[in-house]
């Protein structure tokens, strides 16, 4: 039996050898080696982490603005976007032939998703502010939440501008339980309410936000003026002229102040930062370019200095049956800021509100403020509402050129049919389709 014993002994040894390795069979989870987790930050954020979320919001607001502005401006017949690497800018966006807008491609989904991503960040910021154990005073906490709501309202408005009659979802805090799509009017109301709610905690609140912001001011009561500016814009869209009027009064509107005062999207050449996404050097080859719609030049009054936004090219740029001799040159450098909202728009909103409230003299004064700034003589046309609105829409077209307004303005006054058609069979779309994933 000795052999048997030896066999057992050797087998036992071999089994031991194998068993020795078994304890190392436990596998501990490995945390994400690349990024902080959402749960960590919503449970107990430090002041630094709150600041990170704010920077995330203000940086994220700029994502995909190129597709957003190109979509709005091309359909609004402000400029053409030539891109040989993506011909859909000149086919689908302009409704060429039988081409229609796609509900599942970049110009529809990318801006939509980019805006809601920022909305998500604002919701994370709100949750983080509610749970944080960092030393923040109660008014500060309230003001900070109001900041988040103001930003959220702005981003939702940007989505609604593209979706229009489709409406949008406003209650989106829980991605597993998304709120319903509201109608266009309900959506606008919800955005207005969000701004108004926020303003309760901002207006007259003298504290500083517990973080810094590049938008307007860190001081809560000052930030309220930015909130009110947005509120005035929303009120005008809602045709709530009285609310618009009071919001304007509490905003940073300054009839005699610089037209460029306001809040801006910032760009820089810093590492990892974004460059102005609408910038192209002058005379860029037509393969990749933004060129101004010819009617912008032909419809202008002589001497309008705002035509400097559309300098003449050295050669005509042609693509896909479209031609233009003028560059889109609103942003003269690749780090030029883009307005979120600025005084020139507020003055024009003021003009519109005054016209609608039947104060034509005030309206004309505001119009003249804008006209004179563009080296144009005072307005001499009729002062009935319709004429004033036509004039205001025209001034908005030239003052806010390429800033995402023309299409929205023509639409809210049911004048999309007045936008020019370049090629037989082209269409002017009323809105972008609801993204396929939302159906």
């Amino acid at each position, binding site marked *: 039996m000795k*052999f048997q014993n030896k066999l057992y002994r050797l*087998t036992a040894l071999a089994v031991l*050898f*194998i068993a020795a*390795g*078994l304890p190392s*069979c*436990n*596998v*501990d989870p*490995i945390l994400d*080696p*690349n990024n902080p*987790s*959402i749960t960590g930050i919503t449970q107990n954020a430090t002041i630094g982490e709150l*600041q*990170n*979320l704010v*920077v*995330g919001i*203000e*940086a*994220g607001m700029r994502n995909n603005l190129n597709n957003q502005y190109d979509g709005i401006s091309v359909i609004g017949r402000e400029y053409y976007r030539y891109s*040989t*690497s*993506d*011909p*859909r800018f000149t*086919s*689908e966006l302009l409704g060429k*032939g039988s*081409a229609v807008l796609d509900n*599942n*491609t970049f110009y529809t*989904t*990318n801006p*939509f*998703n980019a805006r*809601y*991503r*920022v909305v998500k960040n604002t919701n*994370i910021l709100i949750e983080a502010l509610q749970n944080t154990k960092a030393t923040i005073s109660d008014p500060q906490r309230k003001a900070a939440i109001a900041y988040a709501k103001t930003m959220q309202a702005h981003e939702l408005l940007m989505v609604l501008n593209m979706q229009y009659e489709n409406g949008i979802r406003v209650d989106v805090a*829980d*991605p597993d339980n*998304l709120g319903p799509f509201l109608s266009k009017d309900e959506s606008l109301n919800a955005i207005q309410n969000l701004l108004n709610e926020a303003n309760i905690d901002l207006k007259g609140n003298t504290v500083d936000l517990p973080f810094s912001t590049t938008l307007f001011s860190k001081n809560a009561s000052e930030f309220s003026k930015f909130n009110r500016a947005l509120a005035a814009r929303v009120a005008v869209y809602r045709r709530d002229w009285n609310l618009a009027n009071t919001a304007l009064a509490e905003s940073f509107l300054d009839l005699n102040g610089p037209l460029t005062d306001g809040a801006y999207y*910032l760009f820089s050449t810093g*590492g*990892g*930062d974004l460059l102005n996404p609408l910038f192209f*050097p002058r005379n860029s*080859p037509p*393969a*990749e370019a933004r060129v101004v719609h010819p009617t912008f030049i032909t419809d202008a009054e002589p001497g309008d200095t705002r035509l400097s936004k559309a300098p003449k090219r050295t050669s*005509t*740029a*042609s693509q896909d049956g479209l*031609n233009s001799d003028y560059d889109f040159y609103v942003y003269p*450098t690749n780090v030029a800021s883009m307005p979120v909202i600025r005084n020139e728009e507020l003055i024009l909103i003021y003009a519109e509100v005054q016209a609608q409230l039947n104060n034509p003299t005030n309206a004309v004064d505001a119009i003249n403020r804008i006209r004179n700034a563009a080296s144009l003589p005072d307005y001499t046309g009729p002062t009935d509402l319709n004429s004033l609105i036509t004039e205001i829409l025209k001034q908005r077209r030239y003052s806010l050129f390429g800033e995402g307004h023309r299409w929205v303005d023509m639409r809210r006054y049911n004048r999309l049919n007045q936008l020019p058609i370049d090629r037989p069979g082209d269409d002017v779309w009323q809105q972008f389709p609801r993204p*396929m994933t939302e*159906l």
Partner: protein
Amino acid sequence: MQHSKRLLCLFCFFAPVWLFAQINVSGTVVDSKDNPIQFATVKIHNSNQGTSTDANGKFRITLPSAGGALEVSFIGYKTQTVPVTGSLSDLIVRMQEDVGHMEEVIITGLASATKRGNLAHAVGTVSAKQLVGTTPQATVDAALYGKFPGAIVSANSGAPGGGISIKLRGVTSLVGNSQPLFIVDGVYYDNSSIQSGTNFISKAAGQGSTNFQDNPSNRVADLDPEDIERIEILKGASTSAIYGARAAAGVVIITTKKGRTGKPRVELGQSIGWQMQLKKLGQRSWDTSKVRAAFGANGIAVYNANEGRTFDYEDELYGNVGYMSNTRLSVSGGNEKTSYYAGVTYRDDEAIIKTTGYRKTSFRLNLDQNVAKFLDLSLNANYVESSADRGFFNNDNTSTTLGVSFVATPSWVNLYPDANGNYPNNPLAPSNFIQTRDLITNNEKVNRILLGGRATWTVFTKGGHDLKVIALGGLDKYTLTTTAIFPAVLQFQKDGNGTNGALIYGTTVANNTNFSALAVYELALDNDMRFTTQAGYNGFNVDLNTIVNTATQLIGTQTNLDQAGSIQVEQNKNISKDRGFFVQEEFNFKDMFIATLGLRGDKSSRNGDADKLYYYPKASAAFNILPLTSLKTFSLLKLRGAYGEAGNFAPFGAIYASLVPVNFSGTTGSIVDVTRGAGDLEPERQRELELGLDAGILNNRVGFEFTWYKKDVEDLILKVQTTGSGGFSTAWKNVAAIENKGVEISVNAVPVITKEWRWNTQANWWKNTARVTRLDVPPFNVGAFGASLGTYRIEKGKSPTQLVGVGDASDKVDPETNLAVFGNTEPDFNLAWSNNVTWNGFELNVLMHWKKGGDNINLSTLLSDIFGTSPDYDKRTLDPSGQLTDGPYRLAIQGATARPWIQDASYFRVRELGLSYTLPKIWFRDVARVRVGFSGRNLINVFDYNSYDPEVSNFGIDAISSNVEVTPYPSSKSFHFNVSVTF
């Protein structure tokens, strides 16, 4: 002492002449035609002692006085056992050819092997001769095309340095890893493809697709094909289950060469060759009216300024004849205790575009040492250094890549530098591709060390019991350096375009380790029953760390990162830990009935629940029915069936819900990732059932293998588009299942064997069809660039590789989705036919490959149409009304239908062709064997596809979204002159 008595009996039985003195045997090993066989192994049965035959097939060996048996083996021949009872001086061992390769030993478990004749499943095998015997090969993966059934091996582009996708038996994953696991001598071999970051310039990921399209190579390219002895390909879960959680896409087991007992064997090889563009497309011819139509007045000005001269830019850019050289030296040998193999390869290939090319140096040392009677050690070491200059290609959104810029430029624009070397700006596009080609760098450099060690402890071998314990460990360490330099003088970097120069420097450090310990117990019972039991555990650690620095606003022509105005850093770590165990039981009755049962359990930090064990079972049976029949013509008749399961992880990071960093105005911030992570993700699971029939006729001169399989991939993970209003564009989910069914047929035959002639032929035919059987999300489009240009669509009941797009009146448009199906990337079938003909010293090898069907999305055509440069722009073949020429016609329906861009990608090609001649040995006094030859790759190509090569992938090895073409690096063909000397 009972056992020693038994032992004595055994010896007496085998060696009746045990009492005599030492036995000396000398003799000759010959083939059936009495030609001597060199390098045949002559071994004493059941010992490590042995030798090998010389150039004349002669050997000399000394046996212990007890006598014994000689085991004579040589690749391609049946092993012969010759009992020896006394000294012999002129023994002739006549080897019988193993025509059907039924004696070939195939690895079937982590530590066990089976004769091919006993296999219960189809295993693809590629021998060294099949791999590199016909023509030199730059990379291993590129050498596998058509050499075994059941795989789609496809080059992503023609860029030097590789970039190959291998997909085994259809679609195994949608977004997870779809490439097989590579194991080289027991070491897990990393096959990552790491993006170099040139997306910063190309902005390819943005408008239509969020995926990077930097055209990286994959790291299995680092392996030197010349070092490889054999490759076994486990194509699905039924065979790969024992490799568990990472094996769903199949396993490629690579065994490198080993030294053999006998005097040193030296092999020297040199090959020189040339490569050139596979297919030229030509350029559009121009006149004033065409110029005006395409480019307007601006174009006319440029056209007139050049006086209507045109330039052959296709030849300028792609017309380089690249000189290729491959130098090879190996030395191997050994004695009873030690054997060694050392090999060095130096390869230097220029490519078809000036300033691009591939260089590789590989050194390998394999050592085997018998330390004691019961202990064997082996060590495999490999060091590789390679450098690939890959050009700048694929999709972009900035018209800066060489490919896009080339199609954007008509032939009448002068892009050549002036006498002072100043390049003109391209007046019609944002970049001058001649300037770009000459001035940019886009290089991948690799330094890689691979170490593998194995200790085999024979615990005992007695009376039918055999227990071994094996420990093995491996280390795979490399540094990949990607260097992209875009100097500030480039048209798209200067004067406010771009960023005034850019440096994109990436470094990936990989540090992967694996280890296993296992025990194998073999039990042979008297009545021809054998049991093989194995059990063990296994660990695998991955640690990849990639850092990409992007510096812009460069100072002059400086290329240091600190000579820049702005720098951006990205870092990405991939860390994981797997632990698993396995058990397997094999049962063999008289080589007639062979059954296997096995189970693997795996844990991994790549799962949402890291400590949860996932089990992967397998079972198989083979039944040699020939002995039960009275069929005389058959030499083999076997039925077999196998079932197994294997896993696949979600892409790294999918289980994490995270915030990603942003840089803004000099500060940093956090924003939610666009993709929603899911901690509850389950690994993908594949269940495969395989049934087959193997037959051999006329002593296996004709062999036949038929395999049918059904492979269900369940819990497929998808990055699904999610309701964007939730804040995430996409989310990871287990949402789908796919069923693959396929047939593989292999026929090999030796139709001619005469004294002088010999013809060996093998044909492989295979076909796979896939169907989505479960989809928990609404059908969605994925891959490529959206429905107007053609896209994949995942839809229940349909093939996951279907291509759909918007359609017009002449397409069959689904009224609900407004989409029409235009094709499928899956081929109807593949047929590969290889032939080997020898006549005296001549040898001719031909490998032909026919891929029938399978479509591509060809957006090179779209881009060249838009710029009016398509070579077929003015042909009139497409418009049913005959009014428009092809270019304008395609553009006219662009946006309304995706039809023009989805094109049949069938091809027939002679992949390899080689003719060699072995010079008469007598010229070299029988000392050396000298072979000279000519060979070529892709010399004959037949396809209708409207571009350089139907084998293309803009998105690299992605599981879904391959077969998309956007101005790739064109493919090449090559021919070579080869000399090899063996002595």
